[in-house]
């Protein structure tokens, strides 16, 4: 008999059925079943997305927004349908608020060039956090250097949580922009972004959220968050590489200067004067990665059918289980113990360098990331050159956590 179900409780995932959708999860690595725990770097693609890419390439491909022939119209419709799907996925008010980019990095660079270079000047201040990925640090440093602006950094505590008091204390009349990550890629900390945005908005300061690690794991509602910009990548979300989005509030996008010049982003061009196209096309110069955008549309369909709340609940269960199992291992320390975390587990093994951990785990078929995770300020904060990082997706199982734990025990055995 089924127990009575509460209406608020997310449905349980049928993980075995989900896994059957992912061809790569059936692979062996060196004779061992693949245990793929590097989802924060890039997730795997279900057959539904692969099939959609094949269908586009086999029967629908032409350039978009241009010719009047059938294929061009089919491709344009599919591309714009993907934009609608992405807008729904993050609950954007309008689909023109979704700009296709090559990924999170390009989305942040777009805001730096389009907003930052127009509105941020000498003496102005930009607030970032210690938890940022390099892609949300370096563009702002480039801007600060060009304009004579200053970067201010929100510190974290020993658990990897942003210090809210210190964040609020950074604001002053020179503060012009906040760019923070929603979820830390190195530690998994989920930042209190809604409160942070409210604090910034009360002082008239716009906020960009780097959602690269949040969008694959949490239901995102940009209207509820209130953020001015939200950026994420398709390939961490079961979609293709080379595609991502920048969400921006329509009014602020319209006020910005274009990022890249070229075809499709203009209404008319003469050598005397060029009139830019309306958003979102103003920011999509040149032929975009049409197939990748359509594939990303299929990926968010796939995730929405499973349900982001159910995905988040399953991943929380995996994180709780993995955290408890690793905590039982002598000599293993978990780095990043924020109360509110996504399914990312950074750890170090006493006396063993993370690169040796990564190579030995790989020999057991377990794929983890080792290194500084493109977040060197986080590593410096903990006085570590690198960590090993297991990051979970909704298709991972507790049996795979057990394989990780067995792999870690094996590493410790080799290095005794």
């Amino acid at each position: 008999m089924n127990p009575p179900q509460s209406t608020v409780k997310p449905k349980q995932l049928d993980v075995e059925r989900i896994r059957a959708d992912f061809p790569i999860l059936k692979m062996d690595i060196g004779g061992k079943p693949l245990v793929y725990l590097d989802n924060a770097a890039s997730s795997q693609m279900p057959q539904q997305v692969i099939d959609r890419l094949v269908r586009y390439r086999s029967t629908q491909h032409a350039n978009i927004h241009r010719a009047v022939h059938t294929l061009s119209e089919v491709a344009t419709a599919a591309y714009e349908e993907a934009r609608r799907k992405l807008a729904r996925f993050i609950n954007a008010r309008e689909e023109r608020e979704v700009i296709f980019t090559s990924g999170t990095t390009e989305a942040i660079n777009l805001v730096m060039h389009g907003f930052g270079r127009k509105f941020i000047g000498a003496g102005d201040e930009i607030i970032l956090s210690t938890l940022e990925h390099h892609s949300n640090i370096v563009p702002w440093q480039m801007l600060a250097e060009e304009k004579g602006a200053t970067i201010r950094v929100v510190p974290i505590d020993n658990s990897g949580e942003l210090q809210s008091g210190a964040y609020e204390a950074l604001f002053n009349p020179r503060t012009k922009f906040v760019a923070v990550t929603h979820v830390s890629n190195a530690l998994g900390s989920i930042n209190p972004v809604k409160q942070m945005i409210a604090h910034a908005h009360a002082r008239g300061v716009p906020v960009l959220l780097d959602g690269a690690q949040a969008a694959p794991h949490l239901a995102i509602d940009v209207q509820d968050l209130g953020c001015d910009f939200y950026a994420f990548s398709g390939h961490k979300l079961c979609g293709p590489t080379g595609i991502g989005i920048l969400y921006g509030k329509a009014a602020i996008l319209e006020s910005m200067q274009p990022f890249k010049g070229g075809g499709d982003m203009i209404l008319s061009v003469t050598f005397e004067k060029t009139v830019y196209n309306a958003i979102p096309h103003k920011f999509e110069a040149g032929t975009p990665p049409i197939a990748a955008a359509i594939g990303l549309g299929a990926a968010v369909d796939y995730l929405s059918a499973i349900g982001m709340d159910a995905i988040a609940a399953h991943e929380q269960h995996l994180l709780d289980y993995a955290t408890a199992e690793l905590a039982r291992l002598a000599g293993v320390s978990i780095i990043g113990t924020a109360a509110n975390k996504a399914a990312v587990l950074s750890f170090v093994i006493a006396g063993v360098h993370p690169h040796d951990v990564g190579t030995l785990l790989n020999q057991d078929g377990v794929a983890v990331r080792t290194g500084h995770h493109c977040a060197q300020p986080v590593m410096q904060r903990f006085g570590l050159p690198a960590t090993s990082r297991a990051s979970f997706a909704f298709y991972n199982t507790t049996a795979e956590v057990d394989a990780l734990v067995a792999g870690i025990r094996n590493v410790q055995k080799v290095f005794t």
Partner: protein
Amino acid sequence: MHWWPGFAMFRRFSHESQRLMADPKALYQEVILDHNRKPRNFGRLDHASHRAEGHNPLCGDHLSLALNVEGDSVAGITFEGESCAICKASASMMTVAVKGKTRQDAQQLIDEFRAMATGELDCGSAPHHLGRLTVFAGMRDLPTRVKCAILPWHTLHAALNSVASTSTESNDDPMNAPIGNA
């Protein structure tokens, strides 16, 4: 000559992959683990005639190398630093291998080690002077780890040529042909 120019490389790679799969722990052989646990010539060297620092910014490996070159001979050599087991064992075995050698012989070992680790030198068929250092031959199948093994040798090359520091990611290092994926 096969009709496909890449065939020889493909055959070697697929053959090597199978060999590694058959013996998955091949890389972390006892001799490497032993040198990692008890590195030889580890520590400071007073009155060194040559010093160099080696960095791998991608993984944080860091190595300080000090040499005492008397006449044409490497009379003393020590290293310090923090690194992965592959790098530390490579450094330890390197100091053992070059101690007492002439500069020319040391340079030859540097060239041979690098050729072995990058797959240009097949230790099974070509003549070489690497001896026990051939435990690192398996590195060529792990392009992401080749730099770990080569860093000490880069640093030795820099020290012998009076270059104060070297990095696996610098372009001006003559040793630093592109290896693997950053």
